[in-house]
Protein backbone atom coordinates (compact mmCIF):
# COMPACT_ATOMS: atom_id res chain seq x y z
CA UNK A 1 0.00 0.00 0.00
CA UNK A 2 1.04 3.48 -0.84
CA UNK A 3 2.33 5.31 2.23
CA UNK A 4 0.72 8.61 1.33
CA UNK A 5 -2.73 7.11 0.89
CA UNK A 6 -5.42 9.17 2.63
CA UNK A 7 -8.86 7.83 3.45
CA UNK A 8 -11.43 10.21 4.92
CA UNK A 9 -14.04 8.38 6.99
CA UNK A 10 -15.32 11.30 9.04
CA UNK A 11 -18.21 12.59 6.94
CA UNK A 12 -20.35 13.06 10.04
CA UNK A 13 -17.87 15.70 11.21
CA UNK A 14 -17.87 17.50 7.89
CA UNK A 15 -17.89 16.81 4.15
CA UNK A 16 -15.73 18.11 1.30
CA UNK A 17 -17.46 20.78 -0.78
CA UNK A 18 -18.79 19.36 -4.06
CA UNK A 19 -17.00 21.07 -7.01
CA UNK A 20 -20.42 21.78 -8.57
CA UNK A 21 -21.34 23.63 -5.39
CA UNK A 22 -18.11 25.63 -5.51
CA UNK A 23 -18.89 26.58 -9.12
CA UNK A 24 -22.36 27.76 -8.12
CA UNK A 25 -21.11 29.99 -5.31
CA UNK A 26 -18.04 31.54 -6.97
CA UNK A 27 -19.78 34.35 -8.90
CA UNK A 28 -21.22 35.63 -5.62
CA UNK A 29 -17.82 36.67 -4.35
CA UNK A 30 -16.63 38.93 -7.13
CA UNK A 31 -19.34 39.76 -9.68
CA UNK A 32 -22.66 39.28 -7.91
CA UNK A 33 -21.41 40.55 -4.58
CA UNK A 34 -24.38 42.73 -3.61
CA UNK A 35 -25.97 43.01 -0.18
CA UNK A 36 -29.30 41.18 -0.37
CA UNK A 37 -30.95 44.11 1.48
CA UNK A 38 -29.83 46.75 -1.05
CA UNK A 39 -32.39 48.26 -3.40
CA UNK A 40 -30.15 48.54 -6.48
CA UNK A 41 -29.42 45.96 -9.15
CA UNK A 42 -26.58 44.33 -7.22
CA UNK A 43 -28.80 43.90 -4.19
CA UNK A 44 -31.67 42.51 -6.24
CA UNK A 45 -29.37 39.99 -7.85
CA UNK A 46 -28.19 38.76 -4.45
CA UNK A 47 -31.75 38.74 -3.09
CA UNK A 48 -32.93 36.61 -6.03
CA UNK A 49 -30.09 34.14 -5.41
CA UNK A 50 -30.93 33.87 -1.71
CA UNK A 51 -34.59 33.27 -2.56
CA UNK A 52 -33.68 30.55 -5.05
CA UNK A 53 -31.52 28.87 -2.42
CA UNK A 54 -34.37 29.18 0.07
CA UNK A 55 -36.66 27.28 -2.30
CA UNK A 56 -34.07 24.54 -2.76
CA UNK A 57 -33.47 24.08 0.95
CA UNK A 58 -37.24 24.11 1.56
CA UNK A 59 -37.70 21.46 -1.15
CA UNK A 60 -35.17 19.17 0.54
CA UNK A 61 -37.45 18.88 3.58
CA UNK A 62 -40.86 19.50 2.02
CA UNK A 63 -41.27 22.94 3.59
CA UNK A 64 -42.46 26.26 2.19
CA UNK A 65 -39.74 28.75 1.30
CA UNK A 66 -41.03 31.29 3.82
CA UNK A 67 -40.57 28.74 6.61
CA UNK A 68 -36.77 28.66 6.14
CA UNK A 69 -34.50 30.95 8.19
CA UNK A 70 -30.90 31.06 7.01
CA UNK A 71 -28.22 31.32 9.68
CA UNK A 72 -24.65 30.20 10.40
CA UNK A 73 -25.09 26.47 10.96
CA UNK A 74 -26.57 23.69 13.02
CA UNK A 75 -25.48 25.06 16.37
CA UNK A 76 -27.11 28.41 15.72
CA UNK A 77 -30.25 26.71 14.37
CA UNK A 78 -30.52 24.73 17.61
CA UNK A 79 -29.99 27.90 19.66
CA UNK A 80 -32.65 29.85 17.79
CA UNK A 81 -35.11 26.96 17.97
CA UNK A 82 -34.76 26.04 21.63
CA UNK A 83 -33.89 29.35 23.24
CA UNK A 84 -36.13 31.24 20.87
CA UNK A 85 -39.21 29.15 21.64
CA UNK A 86 -38.49 28.98 25.36
CA UNK A 87 -38.03 32.73 25.63
CA UNK A 88 -41.24 33.35 23.74
CA UNK A 89 -43.12 31.13 26.16
CA UNK A 90 -41.43 31.90 29.45
CA UNK A 91 -43.78 33.40 31.95
CA UNK A 92 -46.42 30.73 31.65
CA UNK A 93 -44.36 27.59 31.46
CA UNK A 94 -40.89 26.37 32.13
CA UNK A 95 -40.46 22.70 31.32
CA UNK A 96 -38.74 21.11 28.36
CA UNK A 97 -38.16 17.54 27.24
CA UNK A 98 -35.03 16.38 25.46
CA UNK A 99 -32.89 13.23 25.31
CA UNK A 100 -29.62 11.95 26.73
CA UNK A 101 -28.07 11.52 23.26
CA UNK A 102 -28.45 15.01 21.79
CA UNK A 103 -25.60 16.84 20.05
CA UNK A 104 -23.39 18.84 22.41
CA UNK A 105 -24.99 22.09 21.17
CA UNK A 106 -28.45 20.99 22.34
CA UNK A 107 -26.97 19.59 25.54
CA UNK A 108 -25.26 22.90 26.22
CA UNK A 109 -28.35 24.98 25.46
CA UNK A 110 -30.49 22.84 27.79
CA UNK A 111 -27.89 23.02 30.52
CA UNK A 112 -27.97 26.81 30.25
CA UNK A 113 -31.75 26.90 30.44
CA UNK A 114 -31.58 24.58 33.44
CA UNK A 115 -29.36 27.09 35.21
CA UNK A 116 -31.84 29.86 34.57
CA UNK A 117 -34.64 27.91 36.20
CA UNK A 118 -36.06 25.69 33.49
CA UNK A 119 -36.93 22.12 34.38
CA UNK A 120 -35.39 19.70 31.93
CA UNK A 121 -36.40 16.07 31.40
CA UNK A 122 -33.76 14.03 29.56
CA UNK A 123 -35.21 10.88 28.08
CA UNK A 124 -33.19 7.66 28.02
CA UNK A 125 -32.16 6.07 24.73
CA UNK A 126 -31.72 2.55 26.11
CA UNK A 127 -29.21 0.02 24.86
CA UNK A 128 -30.18 0.51 21.24
CA UNK A 129 -29.77 4.29 21.22
CA UNK A 130 -33.42 4.99 20.42
CA UNK A 131 -35.77 7.16 22.46
CA UNK A 132 -39.25 5.74 23.17
CA UNK A 133 -42.26 7.88 22.28
CA UNK A 134 -44.09 6.45 25.30
CA UNK A 135 -41.45 8.04 27.53
CA UNK A 136 -42.28 11.40 25.98
CA UNK A 137 -45.93 10.89 26.87
CA UNK A 138 -45.00 10.04 30.45
CA UNK A 139 -42.73 13.08 30.72
CA UNK A 140 -45.29 15.58 29.43
CA UNK A 141 -46.45 18.07 32.04
CA UNK A 142 -49.07 20.79 31.87
CA UNK A 143 -46.24 23.34 31.68
CA UNK A 144 -44.15 21.63 29.00
CA UNK A 145 -43.24 24.14 26.29
CA UNK A 146 -40.90 22.27 24.01
CA UNK A 147 -39.82 18.78 23.06
CA UNK A 148 -36.41 18.65 21.37
CA UNK A 149 -35.35 15.22 20.13
CA UNK A 150 -32.82 14.78 17.34
CA UNK A 151 -33.76 13.07 14.11
CA UNK A 152 -30.62 10.98 13.84
CA UNK A 153 -27.75 10.77 16.28
CA UNK A 154 -24.35 12.08 15.24
CA UNK A 155 -22.24 9.41 16.95
CA UNK A 156 -24.15 6.20 16.37
CA UNK A 157 -26.58 7.27 13.62
CA UNK A 158 -29.73 5.89 15.26
CA UNK A 159 -32.96 7.32 13.86
CA UNK A 160 -35.43 8.55 16.47
CA UNK A 161 -39.23 8.07 16.39
CA UNK A 162 -40.00 11.64 15.34
CA UNK A 163 -43.35 10.83 13.71
CA UNK A 164 -44.62 9.07 16.82
CA UNK A 165 -43.59 11.94 19.06
CA UNK A 166 -45.29 14.37 16.66
CA UNK A 167 -48.46 12.29 16.88
CA UNK A 168 -48.43 12.76 20.65
CA UNK A 169 -48.03 16.49 20.22
CA UNK A 170 -50.99 16.54 17.82
CA UNK A 171 -53.10 14.63 20.36
CA UNK A 172 -52.24 17.22 22.99
CA UNK A 173 -53.20 20.02 20.62
CA UNK A 174 -56.48 18.30 19.82
CA UNK A 175 -57.20 18.53 23.55
CA UNK A 176 -56.87 22.26 23.30
CA UNK A 177 -53.27 22.71 24.33
CA UNK A 178 -51.60 25.72 22.68
CA UNK A 179 -48.07 26.16 23.97
CA UNK A 180 -46.35 22.91 23.04
CA UNK A 181 -43.77 22.82 20.28
CA UNK A 182 -41.63 20.07 18.80
CA UNK A 183 -38.10 20.66 17.52
CA UNK A 184 -35.80 18.14 15.85
CA UNK A 185 -32.13 18.44 14.99
CA UNK A 186 -31.87 16.94 11.49
CA UNK A 187 -28.27 18.02 10.85
CA UNK A 188 -27.01 14.45 10.40
CA UNK A 189 -30.10 13.09 8.65
CA UNK A 190 -30.52 15.74 5.93
CA UNK A 191 -29.30 14.56 2.55
CA UNK A 192 -28.90 11.02 3.83
CA UNK A 193 -32.50 9.91 4.28
CA UNK A 194 -35.67 11.43 2.78
CA UNK A 195 -37.22 14.07 5.04
CA UNK A 196 -40.59 15.76 4.81
CA UNK A 197 -41.67 18.14 7.56
CA UNK A 198 -45.35 17.26 7.12
CA UNK A 199 -44.72 13.53 7.46
CA UNK A 200 -42.35 14.13 10.36
CA UNK A 201 -44.84 16.49 11.97
CA UNK A 202 -42.22 18.65 13.71
CA UNK A 203 -42.58 22.42 14.19
CA UNK A 204 -38.90 23.29 13.99
CA UNK A 205 -36.04 21.49 12.26
CA UNK A 206 -32.30 22.29 12.20
CA UNK A 207 -30.03 21.91 9.17
CA UNK A 208 -26.33 22.48 8.54
CA UNK A 209 -24.79 23.02 5.10
CA UNK A 210 -21.35 21.53 5.74
CA UNK A 211 -22.73 18.05 6.37
CA UNK A 212 -24.10 17.90 2.83
CA UNK A 213 -21.13 18.86 0.66
CA UNK A 214 -21.49 22.64 1.07
CA UNK A 215 -19.09 24.95 2.96
CA UNK A 216 -18.99 25.53 6.70
CA UNK A 217 -20.76 28.58 8.07
CA UNK A 218 -24.26 28.17 6.64
CA UNK A 219 -27.33 26.49 8.05
CA UNK A 220 -31.07 26.81 8.30
CA UNK A 221 -33.91 26.50 10.73
CA UNK A 222 -37.31 25.41 9.50
CA UNK A 223 -39.94 27.31 11.50
CA UNK A 224 -43.47 26.14 10.79
CA UNK A 225 -45.95 28.93 10.17
CA UNK A 226 -47.55 29.95 13.44
CA UNK A 227 -44.62 29.07 15.72
CA UNK A 228 -43.59 32.00 17.87
CA UNK A 229 -39.96 32.47 18.72
CA UNK A 230 -37.75 35.27 19.97
CA UNK A 231 -34.86 36.17 17.69
CA UNK A 232 -31.49 35.50 19.29
CA UNK A 233 -29.70 37.95 16.98
CA UNK A 234 -31.18 41.42 16.99
CA UNK A 235 -30.45 44.72 15.26
CA UNK A 236 -31.63 44.12 11.70
CA UNK A 237 -34.69 43.07 9.72
CA UNK A 238 -33.16 40.18 7.81
CA UNK A 239 -34.76 36.73 7.61
CA UNK A 240 -38.21 38.03 8.51
CA UNK A 241 -36.95 39.52 11.76
CA UNK A 242 -35.84 36.11 12.98
CA UNK A 243 -32.12 36.51 12.41
CA UNK A 244 -30.52 39.93 12.11
CA UNK A 245 -27.33 40.32 10.10
CA UNK A 246 -26.35 40.64 6.44
CA UNK A 247 -26.97 37.29 4.74
CA UNK A 248 -23.83 35.34 3.80
CA UNK A 249 -24.88 35.13 0.18
CA UNK A 250 -22.12 32.84 -1.22
CA UNK A 251 -22.62 30.32 1.58
CA UNK A 252 -26.40 30.42 1.19
CA UNK A 253 -26.14 29.97 -2.59
CA UNK A 254 -23.84 27.01 -2.00
CA UNK A 255 -26.25 25.55 0.55
CA UNK A 256 -29.07 25.84 -2.01
CA UNK A 257 -27.03 24.17 -4.74
CA UNK A 258 -25.98 21.38 -2.35
CA UNK A 259 -29.57 20.86 -1.20
CA UNK A 260 -30.69 20.47 -4.80
CA UNK A 261 -27.95 17.91 -5.50
CA UNK A 262 -28.72 16.09 -2.25
CA UNK A 263 -32.38 15.79 -3.25
CA UNK A 264 -31.57 14.59 -6.76
CA UNK A 265 -28.81 12.18 -5.75
CA UNK A 266 -30.02 11.02 -2.35
CA UNK A 267 -31.02 7.48 -3.33
CA UNK A 268 -27.79 6.93 -5.20
CA UNK A 269 -25.63 8.39 -2.45
CA UNK A 270 -27.22 6.51 0.40
CA UNK A 271 -27.05 3.23 -1.50
CA UNK A 272 -23.39 3.88 -2.17
CA UNK A 273 -22.60 4.81 1.44
CA UNK A 274 -24.56 1.87 2.79
CA UNK A 275 -22.86 -0.61 0.48
CA UNK A 276 -19.43 0.56 1.67
CA UNK A 277 -20.52 0.69 5.31
CA UNK A 278 -21.98 -2.82 5.20
CA UNK A 279 -18.92 -4.19 3.44
CA UNK A 280 -16.77 -2.52 6.10
CA UNK A 281 -18.79 -3.94 8.99
CA UNK A 282 -18.77 -7.43 7.46
CA UNK A 283 -14.99 -7.19 7.13
CA UNK A 284 -14.56 -6.02 10.71
CA UNK A 285 -16.74 -8.85 12.02
CA UNK A 286 -14.73 -11.31 9.98
CA UNK A 287 -11.27 -10.09 10.88
CA UNK A 288 -11.46 -8.60 14.38
CA UNK A 289 -12.76 -10.30 17.51
CA UNK A 290 -14.19 -8.65 20.62
CA UNK A 291 -15.96 -5.76 18.92
CA UNK A 292 -19.32 -4.27 19.88
CA UNK A 293 -21.45 -2.40 17.35
CA UNK A 294 -23.12 0.59 18.96
CA UNK A 295 -26.66 1.63 18.10
CA UNK A 296 -29.61 -0.29 16.66
CA UNK A 297 -28.22 -1.69 13.41
CA UNK A 298 -31.64 -1.90 11.82
CA UNK A 299 -32.47 1.72 12.49
CA UNK A 300 -29.44 3.78 11.52
CA UNK A 301 -28.28 6.31 8.99
CA UNK A 302 -26.83 4.43 6.01
CA UNK A 303 -23.36 5.98 6.07
CA UNK A 304 -22.28 5.50 9.65
CA UNK A 305 -20.77 2.78 11.80
CA UNK A 306 -19.82 3.06 15.46
CA UNK A 307 -17.74 0.28 16.92
CA UNK A 308 -16.21 -0.32 20.34
CA UNK A 309 -12.97 -2.27 20.24
CA UNK A 310 -12.55 -4.04 23.56
CA UNK A 311 -9.36 -3.78 25.65
CA UNK A 312 -8.11 -0.65 23.91
CA UNK A 313 -8.81 3.03 24.06
CA UNK A 314 -10.17 5.13 21.21
CA UNK A 315 -7.66 7.95 21.04
CA UNK A 316 -4.73 5.57 20.60
CA UNK A 317 -6.60 3.84 17.82
CA UNK A 318 -7.53 7.17 16.23
CA UNK A 319 -3.97 8.46 16.22
CA UNK A 320 -2.56 5.14 15.02
CA UNK A 321 -5.04 5.14 12.12
CA UNK A 322 -4.21 8.77 11.41
CA UNK A 323 -0.54 7.82 11.08
CA UNK A 324 -1.66 5.42 8.33
CA UNK A 325 -3.70 8.12 6.59
CA UNK A 326 -7.13 7.04 7.85
CA UNK A 327 -9.32 9.75 9.39
CA UNK A 328 -12.01 8.68 11.89
CA UNK A 329 -13.35 10.10 15.13
CA UNK A 330 -14.02 9.25 18.74
CA UNK A 331 -16.53 10.82 21.11
CA UNK A 332 -14.32 10.42 24.17
CA UNK A 333 -11.79 12.83 25.57
CA UNK A 334 -9.19 12.44 28.27
CA UNK A 335 -7.51 15.48 29.76
CA UNK A 336 -5.68 16.37 32.95
CA UNK A 337 -6.41 12.94 34.33
CA UNK A 338 -10.15 13.38 34.03
CA UNK A 339 -11.94 11.09 31.69
CA UNK A 340 -14.94 12.04 29.63
CA UNK A 341 -16.04 8.92 27.84
CA UNK A 342 -18.53 9.64 25.09
CA UNK A 343 -21.76 10.65 26.85
CA UNK A 344 -23.73 9.10 24.01
CA UNK A 345 -22.10 5.67 24.31
CA UNK A 346 -22.39 5.90 28.11
CA UNK A 347 -26.09 6.67 27.67
CA UNK A 348 -26.47 3.27 26.01
CA UNK A 349 -25.42 1.74 29.31
CA UNK A 350 -21.97 0.69 28.11
CA UNK A 351 -19.15 0.60 30.66
CA UNK A 352 -16.18 3.01 30.57
CA UNK A 353 -13.98 0.55 28.69
CA UNK A 354 -16.46 0.21 25.84
CA UNK A 355 -17.25 3.93 25.84
CA UNK A 356 -13.54 4.77 25.62
CA UNK A 357 -12.98 2.24 22.86
CA UNK A 358 -15.74 3.56 20.59
CA UNK A 359 -14.78 4.80 17.13
CA UNK A 360 -17.05 6.38 14.52
CA UNK A 361 -16.50 5.59 10.85
CA UNK A 362 -18.66 7.73 8.55
CA UNK A 363 -18.65 7.20 4.80
CA UNK A 364 -19.33 9.66 1.99
CA UNK A 365 -20.05 9.84 -1.70
CA UNK A 366 -16.41 10.06 -2.74
CA UNK A 367 -15.24 6.98 -0.80
CA UNK A 368 -14.42 3.92 -2.89
CA UNK A 369 -14.28 0.16 -2.43
CA UNK A 370 -10.50 0.48 -2.43
CA UNK A 371 -10.80 2.81 0.57
CA UNK A 372 -12.74 0.13 2.44
CA UNK A 373 -10.22 -2.55 1.49
CA UNK A 374 -7.35 -0.38 2.66
CA UNK A 375 -9.03 0.27 6.01
CA UNK A 376 -9.84 -3.41 6.41
CA UNK A 377 -6.19 -4.17 5.86
CA UNK A 378 -4.82 -1.55 8.27
CA UNK A 379 -7.42 -1.66 11.05
CA UNK A 380 -6.95 -5.30 12.19
CA UNK A 381 -3.17 -4.79 12.36
CA UNK A 382 -3.47 -1.60 14.39
CA UNK A 383 -6.05 -3.10 16.75
CA UNK A 384 -3.88 -6.17 17.25
CA UNK A 385 -0.82 -4.06 17.98
CA UNK A 386 -2.63 -2.00 20.60
CA UNK A 387 -4.21 -5.08 22.14
CA UNK A 388 -0.80 -6.65 22.49
CA UNK A 389 -0.02 -3.79 24.88
CA UNK A 390 -3.18 -4.06 26.90
CA UNK A 391 -3.28 -5.59 30.37
CA UNK A 392 -7.07 -5.85 30.07
CA UNK A 393 -6.59 -8.24 27.21
CA UNK A 394 -4.51 -10.68 29.29
CA UNK A 395 -6.90 -10.65 32.20
CA UNK A 396 -9.75 -11.48 29.92
CA UNK A 397 -7.89 -14.31 28.30
CA UNK A 398 -7.10 -15.83 31.68
CA UNK A 399 -3.36 -15.68 31.23
CA UNK A 400 -1.24 -15.80 34.33
CA UNK A 401 -1.90 -12.83 36.48
CA UNK A 402 0.14 -10.48 38.58
CA UNK A 403 0.16 -12.69 41.65
CA UNK A 404 1.56 -15.66 39.78
CA UNK A 405 4.44 -13.56 38.53
CA UNK A 406 4.99 -12.02 41.92
CA UNK A 407 5.50 -15.51 43.37
CA UNK A 408 8.20 -16.39 40.84
Amino acid at each position, binding site marked *: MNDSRKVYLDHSATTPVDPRVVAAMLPYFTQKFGNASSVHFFGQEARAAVDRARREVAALIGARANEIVFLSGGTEANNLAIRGVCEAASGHSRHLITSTIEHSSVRGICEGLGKSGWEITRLPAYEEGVVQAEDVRAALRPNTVLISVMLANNEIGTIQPIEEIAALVREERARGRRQLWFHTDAVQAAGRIPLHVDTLGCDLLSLSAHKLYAPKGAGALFVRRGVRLVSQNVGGHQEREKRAGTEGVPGIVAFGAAAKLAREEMAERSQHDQRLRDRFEAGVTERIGNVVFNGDRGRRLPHLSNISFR*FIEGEGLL*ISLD*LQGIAVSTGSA*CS*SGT*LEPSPVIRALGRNDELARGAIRFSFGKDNTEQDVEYVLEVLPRVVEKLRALS*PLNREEMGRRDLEAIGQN
Partner: protein
Amino acid sequence: MPLWLLTLIALTYSEAFKDHLANPRNAGELANANAVGEETNPVCGDRLRLYLQVKAGRIEAARFLAYGCPPTLVCGSILTELIKGRSVEEATRLTRKDLLAALGGLPSRKQHAAALAIETLRAAIASV
Protein backbone atom coordinates in the same frame (compact mmCIF):
# COMPACT_ATOMS: atom_id res chain seq x y z
CA MET B 1 3.18 30.78 27.57
CA PRO B 2 0.35 32.24 25.49
CA LEU B 3 -2.82 30.16 25.28
CA TRP B 4 -2.68 29.76 21.51
CA LEU B 5 0.77 28.23 21.79
CA LEU B 6 -0.39 25.78 24.43
CA THR B 7 -3.27 24.78 22.18
CA LEU B 8 -0.90 24.27 19.30
CA ILE B 9 1.33 22.01 21.37
CA ALA B 10 -1.68 20.12 22.64
CA LEU B 11 -2.66 19.32 19.08
CA THR B 12 0.67 18.04 17.92
CA TYR B 13 2.65 15.16 19.31
CA SER B 14 6.41 14.96 18.68
CA GLU B 15 7.94 12.62 16.12
CA ALA B 16 9.46 10.58 18.95
CA PHE B 17 5.99 10.25 20.43
CA LYS B 18 4.45 9.04 17.18
CA ASP B 19 7.30 6.61 16.66
CA HIS B 20 6.82 5.03 20.08
CA LEU B 21 3.07 4.81 19.49
CA ALA B 22 3.50 3.11 16.13
CA ASN B 23 6.37 0.88 17.33
CA PRO B 24 6.20 0.36 21.08
CA ARG B 25 9.48 -0.89 22.58
CA ASN B 26 9.58 -3.76 25.06
CA ALA B 27 5.85 -4.41 24.97
CA GLY B 28 4.38 -7.48 26.59
CA GLU B 29 4.98 -9.69 29.59
CA LEU B 30 8.39 -10.67 30.89
CA ALA B 31 8.53 -14.40 31.63
CA ASN B 32 11.42 -14.31 34.09
CA ALA B 33 10.56 -11.06 35.82
CA ASN B 34 11.42 -10.82 39.50
CA ALA B 35 9.78 -7.45 40.07
CA VAL B 36 6.48 -6.09 38.91
CA GLY B 37 4.57 -2.91 39.54
CA GLU B 38 1.13 -1.81 38.47
CA GLU B 39 -0.56 1.53 38.94
CA THR B 40 -3.96 2.82 37.86
CA ASN B 41 -4.96 6.42 37.52
CA PRO B 42 -8.06 6.42 39.72
CA VAL B 43 -9.72 9.21 37.77
CA CYS B 44 -9.40 8.16 34.14
CA GLY B 45 -8.69 4.44 34.60
CA ASP B 46 -5.40 4.48 32.66
CA ARG B 47 -3.25 1.56 33.71
CA LEU B 48 0.41 0.73 33.46
CA ARG B 49 2.14 -2.54 34.41
CA LEU B 50 5.91 -2.81 34.48
CA TYR B 51 7.94 -6.03 34.65
CA LEU B 52 11.59 -5.96 35.64
CA GLN B 53 14.32 -8.52 35.70
CA VAL B 54 16.82 -7.33 38.29
CA LYS B 55 20.20 -9.00 38.78
CA ALA B 56 22.84 -7.77 41.21
CA GLY B 57 21.21 -4.37 41.54
CA ARG B 58 20.99 -3.87 37.79
CA ILE B 59 17.88 -3.84 35.58
CA GLU B 60 18.67 -6.45 32.96
CA ALA B 61 15.30 -6.39 31.23
CA ALA B 62 12.09 -4.38 31.37
CA ARG B 63 8.76 -4.86 29.65
CA PHE B 64 5.38 -3.16 29.99
CA LEU B 65 1.66 -3.41 29.37
CA ALA B 66 -0.59 -0.36 29.22
CA TYR B 67 -4.20 0.62 28.81
CA GLY B 68 -5.25 4.21 28.23
CA CYS B 69 -4.70 7.27 26.14
CA PRO B 70 -1.66 7.48 23.81
CA PRO B 71 0.59 9.34 26.27
CA THR B 72 0.20 6.49 28.75
CA LEU B 73 1.20 3.90 26.15
CA VAL B 74 4.12 5.99 24.96
CA CYS B 75 5.37 6.73 28.50
CA GLY B 76 5.42 2.98 29.18
CA SER B 77 7.47 2.38 26.07
CA ILE B 78 9.95 5.18 26.75
CA LEU B 79 10.28 4.25 30.40
CA THR B 80 11.46 0.74 29.57
CA GLU B 81 14.12 2.18 27.24
CA LEU B 82 15.34 4.61 29.87
CA ILE B 83 15.77 2.05 32.64
CA LYS B 84 17.16 -0.93 30.76
CA GLY B 85 20.76 -1.57 31.75
CA ARG B 86 20.70 0.95 34.56
CA SER B 87 21.29 0.24 38.20
CA VAL B 88 18.24 0.19 40.42
CA GLU B 89 19.68 3.15 42.24
CA GLU B 90 19.89 5.21 39.05
CA ALA B 91 16.38 4.17 38.08
CA THR B 92 15.08 5.33 41.45
CA ARG B 93 16.32 8.83 40.70
CA LEU B 94 14.45 9.01 37.37
CA THR B 95 11.82 11.76 37.39
CA ARG B 96 8.80 12.80 35.43
CA LYS B 97 10.92 15.53 33.84
CA ASP B 98 13.45 13.02 32.48
CA LEU B 99 10.61 11.09 30.90
CA LEU B 100 9.07 14.21 29.39
CA ALA B 101 12.42 15.29 27.99
CA ALA B 102 12.94 11.87 26.39
CA LEU B 103 9.64 12.00 24.56
CA GLY B 104 9.96 15.57 23.35
CA GLY B 105 7.45 17.06 25.79
CA LEU B 106 3.75 16.50 26.39
CA PRO B 107 0.88 18.97 26.44
CA SER B 108 0.17 19.94 30.03
CA ARG B 109 -3.23 18.25 30.02
CA LYS B 110 -1.49 14.96 29.25
CA GLN B 111 1.39 15.14 31.70
CA HIS B 112 -0.34 12.91 34.20
CA ALA B 113 0.71 10.03 31.97
CA ALA B 114 4.37 10.66 32.85
CA ALA B 115 3.50 10.81 36.53
CA LEU B 116 1.74 7.44 36.28
CA ALA B 117 4.83 5.93 34.64
CA ILE B 118 7.15 7.14 37.40
CA GLU B 119 4.79 5.85 40.10
CA THR B 120 4.68 2.47 38.40
CA LEU B 121 8.47 2.38 38.24
CA ARG B 122 8.71 3.11 41.96
CA ALA B 123 6.15 0.39 42.72
CA ALA B 124 8.09 -2.12 40.65
CA ILE B 125 11.39 -1.22 42.31
CA ALA B 126 9.75 -1.52 45.72
CA SER B 127 8.71 -5.08 44.88
CA VAL B 128 12.27 -6.27 44.15
